[in-house]
């Protein structure tokens, strides 16, 4: 943890020379004029063209920008209904009828930045600042383990107090905390862009996915809404290139919808995906996130932006992302209401958070404290309630973390995901981890909703030898063993 004045620390963070090798003729990969031209050229797509594009997506091929632009400009509601169905079909083809669940854990809200839309901005004096000590962090993690979580996304403000050494220490605490049968098995991180050598520090302590959201891909808007360190567009847009270069081969991209035109942002996410794939042998983002701007304490911008996205448009943009990058995980967070999530999950999302509390230090106290939150959450269901609702929709909840413990990362993961093979492992591991949850944490109502799902998905496993192995593992779990996976 750097004991240094923020103004001095800021001067040392950005190393522009680390970006140069990724640029083309000194420019980044967001060609705004080209994006606008493509959207304009595809402003009235033919129905037959839309259907051709849907067929390409269903074959798990990534779309080209002109194809995504055509989908974004579709005006035919019947075709949108078809796209919703295709989105779900794609998701089932790649990942099966399972939803991965995780908890967000906000670790520190000190921040040197002044993003106009964010409750954590340095100038916001109505926010109570806090950074968890390692003991407080262990209490938070114990509380999360106690309700059944196995995966975390740990979130940090950009500040010398939460530099890479602090983040690395918190990961060690997360992996080292045990409670009865429970433990955290995968820790993903959402934090500020780092230099390559700093990413290597996190790689070495076993990070899962590193997430950096660009927020907006539109250069002028980016400059308007960001101050201080985060105002450097290049440092952020190449942050995950540097992470990949450092050997963190699972990265997550995202845009904050509501800052600029939603169609442009979807095109930006696609351009980001394509550039990563081109630079890293076909390995693009492991996940794509699409948060919408939400109200925050003393943050009027968040409710006044002219680009706020309504619910219907939100469902459409999520669908287009699903079709554009069919093999990538998609994260739908508790920023959205339970009602919206239950609807939008059906166009192809793969991961949700649940029982989320985004104040600092609030899980162990079982309280909500808006003065410590970055924004206001829309879905306050407990993990048990969310799992029960998912079960009612036919989804098995997966706590699987096997992939990154079995070397199924980076180009190998992408290869099997693009070929629709990863589901062969996802579903057995979902069954096994769901069984653990039902035995250790579920309410009687959730057990009643979940057991038939396990039976249904078990019976649907295609391979007799696999079935036999899963049956044996389920029996071992019932006998008290934990953390069995394929």
């Amino acid at each position, binding site marked *: 943890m750097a004991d240094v004045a923020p103004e001095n620390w800021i001067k040392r963070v950005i190393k522009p020379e680390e970006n140069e090798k990724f640029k083309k003729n000194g420019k980044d990969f967001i060609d705004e004029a080209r994006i606008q031209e493509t959207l304009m050229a595809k402003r009235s797509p033919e129905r037959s063209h839309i259907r051709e594009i849907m067929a390409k997506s269903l074959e798990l091929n990534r779309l080209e920008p002109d194809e995504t632009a055509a989908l974004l400009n579709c005006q035919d509601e019947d075709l949108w209904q078809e796209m919703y169905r295709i989105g779900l079909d794609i998701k089932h083809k790649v990942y099966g009828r399972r939803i991965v669940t995780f908890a967000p854990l906000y670790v520190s809200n000190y921040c040197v930045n002044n993003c106009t839309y964010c409750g954590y901005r340095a100038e916001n004096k109505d926010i109570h600042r806090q950074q968890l000590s390692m003991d407080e962090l262990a209490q938070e993690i114990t509380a999360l383990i106690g309700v059944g979580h196995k995966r975390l996304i740990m979130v940090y403000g950009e500040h010398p107090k939460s530099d890479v050494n602090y983040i690395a220490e918190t990961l060690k605490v997360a*992996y080292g905390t045990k409670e009865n049968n429970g433990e955290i*098995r*995968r820790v993903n991180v959402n934090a500020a862009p780092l230099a390559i050598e700093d990413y290597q520090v996190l*790689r*070495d*302590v*076993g*990070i*899962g996915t590193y997430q950096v959201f660009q927020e907006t891909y539109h250069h002028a808007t980016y400059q308007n809404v960001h101050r201080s360190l985060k105002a450097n567009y290049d440092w952020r847009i190449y942050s995950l290139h540097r992470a990949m270069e450092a*050997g963190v*081969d699972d990265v997550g991209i995202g845009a904050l919808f509501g800052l600029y035109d939603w169609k442009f942002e979807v095109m930006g996410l696609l351009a980001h995906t394509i550039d990563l794939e081109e630079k890293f042998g076909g390995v693009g983002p492991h996940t794509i996130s699409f948060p919408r701007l939400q109200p925050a304490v003393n943050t009027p911008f968040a409710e006044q932006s002219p680009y706020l996205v309504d619910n219907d448009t939100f469902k459409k943009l999520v669908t287009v992302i699903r079709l554009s990058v069919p093999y990538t995980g998609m994260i739908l967070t508790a920023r959205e209401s339970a009602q919206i999530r239950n609807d939008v999950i059906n166009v192809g999302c793969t991961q949700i958070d649940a029982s989320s509390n985004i104040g600092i230090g609030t899980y162990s106290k079982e309280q909500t404290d808006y003065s410590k939150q970055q924004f206001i959450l829309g879905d306050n269901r407990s993990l048990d309630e969310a799992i029960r609702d998912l079960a009612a929709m036919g989804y098995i909840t997966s706590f699987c973390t096997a992939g*990154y*413990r*079995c*070397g*199924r*990362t*980076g*180009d*190998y*993961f992408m*290869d*099997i995901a693009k*070929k629709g*093979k*990863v589901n*062969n*492992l996802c579903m*057995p591991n979902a069954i096994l981890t769901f069984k653990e949850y039902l035995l250790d944490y579920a309410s009687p109502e959730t057990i009643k909703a979940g057991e038939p799902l396990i039976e249904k998905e078990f019976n649907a496993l295609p*391979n007799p*030898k*696999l079935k036999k*192995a899963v049956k044996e593992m389920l029996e071992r779990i019932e006998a008290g063993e934990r953390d069995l996976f*394929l």
Partner: protein
Amino acid sequence: MSDKAKAPLRLAEQEELIIRLHRDLSCKYPGLKMRWSRIYGSRWAHFLGGSAEVSFFPVKLVLNQDFGLWIENPEVLAQADLERIVGQLKGEFGL
């Protein structure tokens, strides 16, 4: 191996060794599917090899604190060959 303990290999040397072993074993046992991983704590990151056919029952070998190997289809090997490979790796990595 000599009686004298081997000096630990640097990471780059280990990577070169794995690339050579992967090539040699692939030549000696055609059809053998191997995946090599770089170990970072609980994270096993993909390093080399692998096929699009996922394996449900691979053999997992921890080579040392830095690298691991998955033999995806051990069933194509006779038991003696599998033991020979493990023995060779033990020699190379000091398993």
